[in-house]
């Protein structure tokens, strides 16, 4: 294995709000190699977006990275001055959001926006910039790219706008792209086209991808590597197929078992009891314990992540086989 392009260790990002400290990210570690795709899954509020923002240095007041290390191509990002971080953002690491409207300026043509994005990090003549922009639009599957450079965002469909956002993220061939639920708002037929293309692009360009999603099926068809978040922590991580086939953390096992695809039509689904806890009033110890059938008094202490080979889980009583939970 080559050295990882991105190496995250024990990342903790907290928000110091009036109501208390929100520990949105509280123990995230992983490595990512060139061209690798990692799925980051979890329910809403589990800290996926805040993890992505932390990697890009986009955490604002009242939030702060309170602990941990983020190394991009060997450079520690958490201690970089703002100006240097800005110089890397969009160039070495970039982000795609669920709603491309948030990143596209409605007043500028796609061509103008792509030129600005290029200018931010590179001196390219007008011609050359246009050629680069058109090439990327073509690569992400936008037909008649040269003509479309003169279009405004509102002239594109939702799917096409997301392709433009992807093209912009790819402009400087970054080492890492964080994609935050980029296909969640799109229809399945468009989602399938984009998933297909992203997989090829990561493969061809060597860009590593973090694909944030709440949809296990989407992630399983795209990412070779998977991390599952719960209450700010990665509770389980490892190779996607093995993890889904044989989950170790009771939360992961419950999540998979609760999918309609796992049940006979019309029969009750396996359900995880209770709701996700408020980050302001987390129980001491394992945050999943109150919902966990396997919890014992051991779980009043927070488990560290245990690695066995390339699989890791944060649990004292790992499930030995998924089937045990479904019966």
């Amino acid at each position, binding site marked *: 294995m080559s050295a990882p392009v991105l190496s995250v260790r024990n990342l903790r990002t907290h928000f110091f709000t009036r109501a208390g400290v929100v520990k949105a990210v509280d123990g995230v570690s992983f490595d990512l190699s060139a061209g690798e795709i990692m799925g980051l899954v979890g*329910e*809403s509020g589990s800290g996926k977006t805040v993890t992505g923002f932390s990697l890009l240095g986009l955490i604002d007041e009242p939030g702060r990275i309170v602990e941990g290390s983020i190394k991009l191509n060997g450079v520690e990002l958490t201690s970089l001055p703002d100006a240097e971080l800005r110089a890397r953002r969009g160039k070495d690491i970039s982000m795609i959001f669920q709603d491309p409207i948030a990143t596209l300026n409605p007043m500028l043509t796609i061509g103008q926006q792509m030129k600005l994005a290029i200018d931010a990090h590179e001196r390219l003549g007008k011609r050359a910039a246009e050629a680069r922009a058109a090439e990327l639009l073509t690569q992400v599957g936008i037909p008649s790219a040269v003509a479309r450079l003169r279009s405004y965002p509102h002239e594109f*469909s939702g*799917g*096409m706008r997301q392709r433009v956002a992807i093209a912009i993220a790819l402009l400087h061939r970054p080492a890492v792209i964080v994609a935050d639920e980029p296909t969640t708002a799109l*229809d*399945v*037929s*468009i*989602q*399938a*086209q984009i*998933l*297909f293309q992203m997989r090829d692009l990561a493969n061809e360009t060597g860009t590593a991808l973090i694909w944030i999603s*709440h*949809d*296990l*099926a*989407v992630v*399983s*068809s*795209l990412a*070779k590597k998977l991390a599952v978040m719960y209450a700010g922590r990665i509770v389980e991580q490892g*190779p*996607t*197929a*093995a993890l*889904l*086939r044989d989950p170790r953390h009771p939360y992961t096992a*419950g*999540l*998979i078992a*609760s*999918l*309609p*695809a*796992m*049940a006979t*039509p*019309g029969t*009750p*689904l*396996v*359900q*995880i009891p209770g*709701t*996700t806890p408020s980050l302001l009033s987390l129980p001491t110890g394992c945050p999943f314990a109150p919902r966990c059938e396997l919890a014992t008094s051991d779980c009043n202490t927070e488990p560290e992540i245990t690695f066995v080979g390339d699989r890791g889980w944060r649990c004292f009583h790992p499930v030995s086989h998924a089937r045990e939970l479904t019966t």
Partner: protein
Amino acid sequence: MSAFLTVDDVSRVFGPNLNTGEKIAARLGAQVETRSVRAVSDVSLTVSKGETLGLVGESGCGKSTLGRLMAGILAPTSGTVLIDGAPVMVNGVKATTRVQTVFQDPFASLDPRMKVGDTVSEGPIAHGLTTRAQAKAYVAGWFEKVGLDPGWTDRFPHQFSGGQRQRVAIARALAMQPDMLICDEPVASLDVSIQAQIINLFLELTRDLELTTVFISHDLSVVQHVSDRVAVMYLGRIVEVGPVAQVFNNPAHPYTDALFGSVPKLVLDADELVHFDTITGEVPSPLAPPSGCYFHPRCPLATPVCSSDVPCMQSLPDMRTVACHHFKEQFAKSFGKAG
């Protein structure tokens, strides 16, 4: 089984809704959208007593519009909707309490300033299903039925989680003692673990109360799980209807086949490089739908007849209907795939 809900040749057109300024601008030749959308186009359907009909299709294909037409809360431009032989709407006003609705976003559909108990009892009191004096006990009963603490009737919507709010919305619909529920994306905004809880509640209630249901969702695995039959829509038209197992396993319409082929499945084999059967292109604008079969520009089986003639609904021997000139070839293809 006989039809309980009958949708007979129903269409709904939405006009461009221009204000005066826009109308003048359009007259003067400005770029103002003056075309109308045929959101639901010549739809005929029946739902049998006690059955759950799933309604699927990509966004903008007319699922919500059809749902509102079936619930009697939106007037059709033409055609009629009957529940147990009686029209759901008379002179543009909802004419029955026998059909009730549950929507995607329970927060938007619950009044934030009203105690949830009052929200739930409002309709039943107005329709004489309970009295003001008995309302509290009446609501508590429905709360229990949907898995909410009956002591919570004095709370406000913001004091509930998303899943609990959806339970309140279900209680409100059920408190009207309907025979039929129209559920429009009822679990779409919920997390997976909460989704399972609501789906289980839904399965239990439809069985216990013998409800007839239309379940609208863009999530095909959810629809497959809860429905007896499923209808597939494309640009306002129904392209295929039939028993869930048949439609999912052997689609008779090329669009059904393509739609189901694009849904990512849980991949459990590390060496499998997933192949997506992607549909080429995008859904055309509903403002200017293609001629003939709406799907023909994206259809792998299209021939000249598909761009000239609208295919009519044909009944197949296995209880399904399909609108396609080439359903026999599609059939052969999907059976080939399955075998």
